[in-house]
């Protein structure tokens, strides 16, 4: 997290690195979680073994 006068970034912004190591498919299918009518992935957990 950076802290300066005009901007404050809240996270590591690591989406790009996640792509390189990702895609193993072990995590929950998104529609199974609660909703059954929509697809929201933002709240899902990664279950990749060596992260």
């Amino acid at each position, binding site marked *: *997290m950076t*802290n*300066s*006068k*005009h*901007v*404050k*970034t*809240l*996270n*590591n*912004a*690591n*989406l*790009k690195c*996640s*792509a390189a*190591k*990702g*895609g193993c*498919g*072990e*995590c*929950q*299918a*998104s*529609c*199974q*979680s*609660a*909703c*059954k*009518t*929509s*697809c*929201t*992935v*933002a*709240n*899902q*957990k*990664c*279950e*990749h073994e060596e992260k």
Partner: protein
Amino acid sequence: MIHKYSLNGYNIVLDVHSGGVSVVDDAAYALLDYLDAPMQEKCPEEILDKLSERFGRDELESAYAELYGMYQDGILFSEDDYEQFADKMVSSPVKAMCLHIAHDCNLRCKYCFASTGDFGHGRKLMDFETGKRAIDFLIEHSGTRRNLELDFFGGEPLMNYEVVKQVVAYARSIEKQHNKNFRFTITTNGVQLTEDKFEFLNKEMSNVVLSIDGRKEVNDRMRPNAGGKGSYDTILPHFQKFVESRGQDQYYVRGTFTRYNLDFAEDVLDLNAKGFDQISVEPVVTDSKYDYALREEDLPKVFAEYERLAKELIRRKKEGKGFNFFHFMIDLDQGPCAIKRLRGCGCGNEYVAVTPDGDIYPCHQFVGMEDWKMGNLYDGTFDLKRKEYFAHANIYGKEECGKCWAKFYCSGGCNANNLQYAGDVLKPYRLACEMEKKRLECAIMIKAAMADTDSE
């Protein structure tokens, strides 16, 4: 690509392709109206001129310098270089299944997409043989995937509770030899959720979805039993006891809001007041011919309600009395990988639904649409061409999604809704998109507000 918005006093900037989320002050926010990649080291004079009435030159220059720093760090206007992963978004093993163990129901919910449980094809309970074949199918098609998910769905699955137990026992008896780990979940309306079932369900179900709409009058209007009487007084105590027996964990109470309760935040808060802290309340998905269907003109009201709920949630979190609202939960650092996010819901590719007759459909929302049937467990058919088609229903297969700022969070919407309302699996359904984007804006704003508290 960036998305910026002001909400609840926060100027928020989402850098779409890096996932970076920043809160910026008014000067930086104003500058962003004029900026795009490639950024130059010094702020162009004409931009300074344009904003000179609102901000001092020094202020603009220092804000620009910080934005430029973000740009150099790859968290502002970062590039879309995900096409290279397109090969990871092809046909993959089947690893999740929605098992329609009962096409029958003891409620007559008005908005039920299964048309009161039978999906328009007559009431029917799945027999054990079909359930067993479903387990075998899943194992056989799951390749190297270890975690296999199976949701008992309906209709109302507890109307066929004995077969649920048999199917679980069967899967448990063979999972080790196949090096698999089954995760069962169940979605129930609660009518038959009596204490004698708690022990089994708590042992075997890694998550349970408990259907209830919120306030008594809201629930009873849409969720009556076959005799027309509201279900609330039956299900609420069942759910309360059940959740208690699970240690308040691994469940969702899940409601639907319609045009009849556009003040649905009240329903969320009422569920919380009744002792639930894992809550999901979602917009009804139904034909616009119905009176209770959400319409375009309802959006401002729905948006305002999401904002109201978000602010209330922040207030409660700060007091240590927060709860989880499914669609506001977002993990900005440790969430799923970008591939997962781009791949879409998996329907018809890594996820399928199976009916009491052993018919295979792309997902529960497609069940009953004859044209979309993918195969059958008894004649051994499984349409791989169609599977391939769904594998390409990812973000890059949907033109509008590729350009959408919400793509890494929404994952491309619901194929079934797209088909029903926009006429094409690959065409996002606008009303759903607008609500999804609003929920995301609220979810991110909550993070900003909580980060603000932490640093105080």
